[in-house]
């Protein structure tokens, strides 16, 4: 009989419940809007109702006369050193950085652009005041579609840029043209990755508190990147970075929308400076739809040169990215991430890429869960199906023919990345098995007998995450490094505090980091506190985005734990009167090799290090260590998702009847948290595939400004999902971890669309754009039948 290995729950690999959840589910979370400072006033922004207009003048007198209104600030009266700054300048792209003042000066360029800020006793009065601010606008011509914006004669978003071009990234490998010319056949596909809105549960919001006497400013803000915000507040508002404190209390989701620095964050600081009291602004849901960044909005043209085996011998990718009216923190770099991942998990060495970025009269786009990589994956995965269709091959087989093989790792991609590790056939095999791919035709026949179309779709993805080696971020024109900080502090009683530079806003770092401490240092899960989100006491941290927290911040923690453990060893050797070489680590204590009775627990050593009465020569008191970890490479999680759908021809409704995801994110700290990330990621991909689209009308008005028009899926719209994993540890870090925050979103949309196209392929349908709302699907069926 096999013996069961027992280990305390709470270490690496254990599916422990999240320690932070109690406060959230009992309503004890503390968000920005829960904070109330003495004397605090409330701000509401006056926003442009036009997609593009000249401002002739602003009359604030009526608003200022409303009882309870303290001040109305406009561009002319709000102090600021600069406008919003972008940290993104992709090399060779001739990127243009239009000025983005905190409040519009003489022109507005998208619906929702802030024009004035009303400061009042409460939010209600401020809103009434905002309605009384009279702005004299002359509407100007608008262009919202990126392809239209780049066409000759388009209305100009910025009159100084006569072609609306924001940036162009080009890349071609030597020998591409010959390879394309020599291809047996070519397959072409146009794919639209529509604009979507991030929609975190907690909208944005902030409180600025400027101390007049000292010039110190504290900004409480709902962000993923507190230190970025601090640096930028000091520059934009014109004060010393050392005088700026940024606090992030609990943050209710971000999805990339809070990986940014926004006008409102600077404006409340400057307004607090002008008015002399703390000022709070809380974004409402409708405001969130126009004032917070959007995601995606990319049109792609693929031409694949293919040989008769289905192998892609050359790939041309020509795309247009809609950047919106201005550049936010990373706008021009998002489609650069698409560029990196154009070849996906396939060995495509001959490649030609052009990514044209356009200004339009829309809210700026920036990072949204996956940030450029979902666009690449969706496109290449649609293309693989188109190739399979063209050659009459099975969709799985065409992928196998093109996969990068396990022996090719580390693999240098044609776009300049080095993939760390992967075994793509393994996740494909497992996903096909779990989804009973082999038995699909029988299920299709059963559905057809029932009057329904049934289809199955694959998405075999790889993504680049763990952002990022600092030399690489510099080389690709991102004005910020990619390292991460950790501090581990042991208290005299043997408890531990972890200070992390990551910025959890739903990811469960308090839990995962505690598990790492338990395994690496032997301090129980419950004895660990994880703190974050206040630049006053934390060393610089880069925050949470790009599925980086574990692969960079977790590894920074792992390294600090190693430092503490080694220091404890020296102290133990001194106490046990032996040499450090005589000691072995038991998981919870240092003991003399082979002598369990001669040991010191980590808690005893923490106390001894604090008491400091018997320290080895040259060793400082206290067990505490800090690490700034700069990763040597990105990490590259991968996997296969299989979706099976049924389509009702009477209405065009798509029902997901099976969904299987086999993901490989390297070693796993907490399987529950990984499953949660995959579930949520898939749902966001499903939202884009079936429901969500941010739509602008010809006149520049947003047609989806509320959750009645912008359809976010609810729990009732989500199918059962079968999840499984393979484990291919990353060789890029000592923990072998990769990252899972975005993988589900990156994978899901193409699996769902591929399934729907497959369902209708018998009718001759070759492609469907997202969202695949019933009317669009029904229309495609009618068109195919006609």
């Amino acid at each position, binding site marked *: 009989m096999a013996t069961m290995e027992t280990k305390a729950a709470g270490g690496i690999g254990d599916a422990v419940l999240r320690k932070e959840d109690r406060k959230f589910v009992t309503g004890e979370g503390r968000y920005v809007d829960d904070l109330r400072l003495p004397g605090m006033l409330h701000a509401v922004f006056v926003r442009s109702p036009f997609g593009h207009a000249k401002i002739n003048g602003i009359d604030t007198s009526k608003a200022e006369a409303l009882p309870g209104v303290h001040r109305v600030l406009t561009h002319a009266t709000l102090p600021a050193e600069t406008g919003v700054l972008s940290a993104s300048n992709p090399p060779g792209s001739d990127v243009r950085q239009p000025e983005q003042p905190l409040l519009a000066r003489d022109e507005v360029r998208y619906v929702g652009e802030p024009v004035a800020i009303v400061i009042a006793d409460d939010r209600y009065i401020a809103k009434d005041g905002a309605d009384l601010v009279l702005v004299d606008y002359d509407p100007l011509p608008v262009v919202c579609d990126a392809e239209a914006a780049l066409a000759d004669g388009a209305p100009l978003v910025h009159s100084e840029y006569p072609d609306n071009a924001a940036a162009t990234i080009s890349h071609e490998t030597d020998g591409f043209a010959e390879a394309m010319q020599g291809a047996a056949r070519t397959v072409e596909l146009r794919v639209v990755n529509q604009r979507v809105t991030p929609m975190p549960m907690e909208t944005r919001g902030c409180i600025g508190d400027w101390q007049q006497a000292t010039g110190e400013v504290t900004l409480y803000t709902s962000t993923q990147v507190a230190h970025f915000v601090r640096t930028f507040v000091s520059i934009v508002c014109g004060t010393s970075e050392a005088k700026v404190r940024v606090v992030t209390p609990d943050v209710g989701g971000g999805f990339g929308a809070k990986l940014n620095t926004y006008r409102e964050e600077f404006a409340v600081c400057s307004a607090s400076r002008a008015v002399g009291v703390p000022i709070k602004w809380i974004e409402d849901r409708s405001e969130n739809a126009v004032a917070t960044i959007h995601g995606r909005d990319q049109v792609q043209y693929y031409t694949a040169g293919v040989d008769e085996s289905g192998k892609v011998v050359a790939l041309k990718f020509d795309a247009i990215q809609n950047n919106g009216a201005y550049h936010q923190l990373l706008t021009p770099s998002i489609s650069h991430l698409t560029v990196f991942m154009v070849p996906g998990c396939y060995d495509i060495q001959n490649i030609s890429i052009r990514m044209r970025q356009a200004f339009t009269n829309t809210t700026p786009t920036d990072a949204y869960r996956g940030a450029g990589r979902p666009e690449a994956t969706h496109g290449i995965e649609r293309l693989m199906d188109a190739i399979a269709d063209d050659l009459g091959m099975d969709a799985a087989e065409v992928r196998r023919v093109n996969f990068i093989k396990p022996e090719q790792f580390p693999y240098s991609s044609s776009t300049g990345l080095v993939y760390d590790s992967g075994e793509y056939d393994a996740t494909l095999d497992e996903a096909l098995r779990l989804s009973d791919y082999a038995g699909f035709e029988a299920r299709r026949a059963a559905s057809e007998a029932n009057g329904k179309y049934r289809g199955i779709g694959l998405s075999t993805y790889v993504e680049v995450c763990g952002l990022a080696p600092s030399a690489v971020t510099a080389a690709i024109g991102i004005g910020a490094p990619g390292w991460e900080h950790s501090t581990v502090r042991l208290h005299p009683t043997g408890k531990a505090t972890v200070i992390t530079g990551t910025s959890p806003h739903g990811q469960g770092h308090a839990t995962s980091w505690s598990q790492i401490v338990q395994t690496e240092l032997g301090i129980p899960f419950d004895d660990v506190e994880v703190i974050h989100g206040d630049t006053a006491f934390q060393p610089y941290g880069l925050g949470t985005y790009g599925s980086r927290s574990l692969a960079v911040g977790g590894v920074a923690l792992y390294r600090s734990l190693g430092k503490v453990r080694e220091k404890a060893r020296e102290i133990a050797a001194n106490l046990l009167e032996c040499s450090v070489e005589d000691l072995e680590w038991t998981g919870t204590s240092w003991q003399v090799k082979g002598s369990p009775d001669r040991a010191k627990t980590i808690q005893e050593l923490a106390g001894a290090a604090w008491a400091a009465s018997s320290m080895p020569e040259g060793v400082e008191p206290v067990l505490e260590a800090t690490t700034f970890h700069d990763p040597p490479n990105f990490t590259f999680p991968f996997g296969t998702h299989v979706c099976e759908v049924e389509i009702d021809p009477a209405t065009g409704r798509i029902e997901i009847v099976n969904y299987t995801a086999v993901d490989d994110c390297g070693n796993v700290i907490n399987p529950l948290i990984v499953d949660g990330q995959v579930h949520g990621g898939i749902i966001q991909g499903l939202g884009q595939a079936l429901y969500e689209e941010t739509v602008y009308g010809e006149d520049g008005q947003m047609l989806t400004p509320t959750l009645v028009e912008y359809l976010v899926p609810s729990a009732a719209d989500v199918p059962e999902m079968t999840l499984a994993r393979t484990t291919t540890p990353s060789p890029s870090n000592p923990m072998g971890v990769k990252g899972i925050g975005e993988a589900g979103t990156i994978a899901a949309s193409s699996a769902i669309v591929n399934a729907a196209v497959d369902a209708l392929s018998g009718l001759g349908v070759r492609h469907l754009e997202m969202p695949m*709302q019933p009317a669009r699907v029904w229309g495609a069926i009618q068109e195919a039948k006609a």
Partner: protein
Amino acid sequence: MIPSTLEYTKASSIDEAIAAVQAGARPLAGGQSLMPMMRLRLAAPGAVVDLGGIAELVGVCEDGDEIAVGAMTTHRAVAADPLIGEHCRVVAQAASGVGSLVIRGRGTIGGSLAHADPHGDLPAAILAVGGAVIARGPGGERRIEIGDLITSYLTTSLADDEIITQVRLPKGNGRSAYAKFHRRAIDWSIVGVGVAIGADGVRAAATGVADRPVRLAGFEAAINGGASAEEAARAAGEGIDPTADLDGSTEYKRHLAGVLAAQAHQAAQG
């Protein structure tokens, strides 16, 4: 999402409510339509009078050939009411599918009719059975047939100082059903169709295909003329011209009206 400043009063009798309405207050029923509009500042009444404290506006009873439903009866109560279920199943079904459980627990039948949303389910269901409302103003009560009540988008023939006190549902519509189509589990209907098989034939009424609930004359004529449900479905789009929007084209909505009419007709026979 912040309403403008307003006066709020809660009436304890119909007369008190009418007095407030005469003074310019907007009647507030369950608040499931008016409140969102106020939060979006699409509506900005200076005053509202809450009808939630008027006991006589709540409840369902038989009254001759009709069922009298108090205007402030919630969707949840309508959906569960045995009288309505027996005599006007289409109305109970429509009520059971409005919004979410929380919305059905607050939203009311009278509020739904007075709000006159062109995608509302209850107006179409009540039109299918030929219902009416009782409106009361300072000059007394009058009866308004449902087809005469809703005149356009969010517009009714109620006078400014009238409120709906009762909804009248004719008995004899037990063989009736409601079918609707929407994108997510909880959403406004893109199109919804109520069908009632009465003594004088089949009546079908749709929401989402015009600026008000309308009878599907093409479907009715075909089915009453002996056509199959499938044939009648093809005729359902005759005479309606739904507006194309993000939910679909005119052609798609006409098609949906037919699909749903046939579904409801099938269900009504059970």
